[in-house]
């Protein structure tokens, strides 16, 4: 887990870039997995923004989660192209198999189940991601593997 100093360095490295506060928050999520209060304070400090400004940015973007995700992060596309080939049924099967709702993380932090709106593989749905791996023609069995 990166230290506060490491996070501050990461954030400071974004200064001067277009859209820097958004990019800084994305880098925090990329390295740390989620954004903590401490990180919000660092971003506010580095960019001379109010805490409310930064919290506003965090709450706006779907990628900026504020709670730790499970070790296995399953994301199932919820958009129309995947709906047309059974993503609703697949999502329901997964919530039942894992015992958690869409958007939730299991209590032991083993798995998070999220929706995603389009991975751009729309002729080969239903599409999903397990951590960084992309699955097309996804099935329950593959997602649970």
């Amino acid at each position, binding site marked *: 887990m990166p230290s506060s100093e490491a996070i501050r360095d990461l954030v400071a490295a974004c200064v001067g*870039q277009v859209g820097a506060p958004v990019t800084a928050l994305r880098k925090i999520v990329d390295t740390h997995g989620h954004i903590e209060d401490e990180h919000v304070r660092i971003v506010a400090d580095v960019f001379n923004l109010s805490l409310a400004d930064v919290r506003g940015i965090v709450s706006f973007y779907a990628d900026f989660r504020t709670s730790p995700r499970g070790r296995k992060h399953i994301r199932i596309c919820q958009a129309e192209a995947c709906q047309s080939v059974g993503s609703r049924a697949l999502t329901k099967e997964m919530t039942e198999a894992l015992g958690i709702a869409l958007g939730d993380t299991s209590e032991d932090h083993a798995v998070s189940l999220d929706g995603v709106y389009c991975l751009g593989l729309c002729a080969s749905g239903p599409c999903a991601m397990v951590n960084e791996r992309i699955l097309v023609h996804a099935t329950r069995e593959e997602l649970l593997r």
Partner: protein
Amino acid sequence: MSRVLVPNEALANALGANELARELQVRGHEVIRTGGFGLAWLEPMLVIDGEAYGPVQDLDALDAVALGPLAKLPELVRQQRIVFDRCGHVDPMDYDPSWLLEQLEREPREIIEEIKASGLRGRGGAGFPAHIKWQTVFDAVCETGAPQKYIVVNADEGDSGTFADRLIMEGDPFRLIEGMMISGHATGADKGIVYLRSEYPLAAEIFANAMEKAKALGLLERFDIELFIGAGAYICGEETSMLESLEGKRGEVRFKPPVPAVAGLFGQPTLVHNVITLCSVPGILDMGGKAYAEIGTGASTGTSTFQLAGNIKRGGLYELPFGISLRELVEDWGGGTRTGRPFGAVQVGGPLGAYLFERHLDTPLGYEDMAALDAGIGHGGLVVFDDTIDLVQQAHYAFAFCAHESCGKCTPCRIGSVRGKEAVAALASGEYTEDRLEVIDELCDLMEQTSLCQMGGMTPIPVRSALGEALSRKGEVN
């Protein structure tokens, strides 16, 4: 030893292209990682010494998936690939800038005249004539002497059923760099920013490599390019929301006017275009605007990069002249539904697009023809459903998606979408009562007429087209 083209493209990779490339190298073949051809059902597709094979699962059983010579593959030969002419054939980093450098010697006014003559309209969805934006940004220098102008590329391809931006950025990133640099030269902008969605990591990696290559070629000395990765907000595909996001803020839409061409990024004149609009520019300059205008139908000139998606047998990207009918695309190119069930509906142009039905299928795909059906082409994505489609559920989803993605700035969209979702849910759970329908209808009117941007303004399109059809079918049953 053979020369083998292996796509390095997100779909092909998900289906095993990386593993195939490694195995081919182990066997001593010359492997060239190219872009994808966009023929989704043939991926992973290999080209071995000019012969195409796909979908390849096993390198020792290629005969079973032989497609014949690539140069004669009907699915490619019958297209008119102007934007995608190089994509799939070449290593995207193998780039010779001489053609681009020639174009950058041309007079800006002359380039804008070519764009005007071509009739090019925005490929992101609005279909606004490109040359008007170019002229506005060009003029902005003369009148105000603004210190900085920008090219902003909209690669926040969030519409379900679309993947043209992804395919070109993975397969031919220099086509986009050409479009950016030419438009920058023509309008007097020397900085370009690509706003790419975070769901496209491979496109980000390949485009970043292309930027390095462009730098090594000395191209970035005259035009600076920056790549910005979004953070999972559909609304940031709306141009003013995108500009806010690029300024490091919440992506809340802005009031218009002023339009971005007058006051855009950081208040400066900004040319905002979709990836495919800019990627159409090199082809236009190459063949001449007048020749380009002869392709297509009416005021819909040139080619569109149609993307067939959803429940479809032969899905993928087909670059074809505007004017092809929905039926030709869905039936001839797409081969009908993947499930083999009867066709049910096609949603054209993403989540804000209309659901169209059997009786609409002979409509030509042109901006005006689609507008006559209260529909649009959007970014050229077509999502096909079979006859099991639940139209009330899709109308509910249209409101739910709007509620999920609304930036929250204007009330009609922020609250209207939530109330609409509730009303359709009530409709679905019980009787179709007259007062419920009136509520939904009035809400749609209100959202259409008073929303700040097209998110709220166009959500009624899928709602009305889906619900209207569901109700008329119910009427037939009763």
